């Protein structure tokens, strides 16, 4: 499943709800769905607040399902992250005036099984999450 939309803050809600709606086919638990919505919201907010700071650009989300494993890629072509290690430190934020808590990446790591970040300054950032769902639906 692929989505492409503009980096407007109103789309934060659209993005997490669209991904959650797509994943209902796996009959996830309420908790799992809430985890996925939360991490999508964090990553999309990063694109709105940081990647395309003061501008509007495109955000692309790609969701892949293999048995019980969900892989979500969230990609922007914004400013990129110079120091990924620093950006992922809990409580580090470059947007204190927006009241960002600096917890985005900590939440992504805590609420999924695996997070990876690839970024290139001036070209953009791709965040990839993987999460195993309990998958109560049998494929038979």
């Amino acid at each position, binding site marked *: 499943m692929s989505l492409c939309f503009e980096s407007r803050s109103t789309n934060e809600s659209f993005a997490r709800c669209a991904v959650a709606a797509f994943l209902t086919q796996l009959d996830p638990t309420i908790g799992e769905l809430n985890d996925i919505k*939360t991490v999508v*919201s*964090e990553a999309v907010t990063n694109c*709105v*607040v940081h990647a395309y700071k003061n501008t509007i650009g495109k955000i692309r989300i790609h969701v892949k399902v293999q048995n019980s494993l969900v892989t979500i890629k969230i990609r922007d072509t914004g400013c990129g992250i110079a120091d990924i290690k620093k950006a992922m430190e809990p409580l580090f934020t470059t947007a204190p005036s927006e*009241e*960002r*808590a600096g*917890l985005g990446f900590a*939440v992504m790591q805590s609420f999924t099984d695996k997070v990876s970040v690839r970024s290139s300054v001036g070209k953009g950032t791709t965040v990839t999450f993987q999460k195993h769902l309990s998958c109560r639906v049998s494929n038979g």
Partner: protein
Amino acid sequence: MRIMDSGEGITAYLTGDIDHHTARAMRESIDAAVQKKRPSVLRLDFSGVSFMDSSGIGLIMGRYRLMALYGGMVKAVNIPAELERMMALSGLYGLDIIEKRGETFETAK
């Protein structure tokens, strides 16, 4: 969102989803009420919140700083079970800002 006087303090009843987009309007209304009334306690009631990302933590931390300017305090109360992991991750339990399940804050003197 409703903001009500509750004796010595005020209570903001947050509703719906809290994200980066919706947190802005919530913080503007709450801050306007705080600046007008200068309460000793600001209670943020989360019972009507259906979803929250880390913007909710930013909302609590920002109000904590604002209330500290006036010598007042913030209490986050009635946290739904599904928001507890986010609250735990924030470290705010250690600062006694968030009411734990099954325990009710005494109203401030």
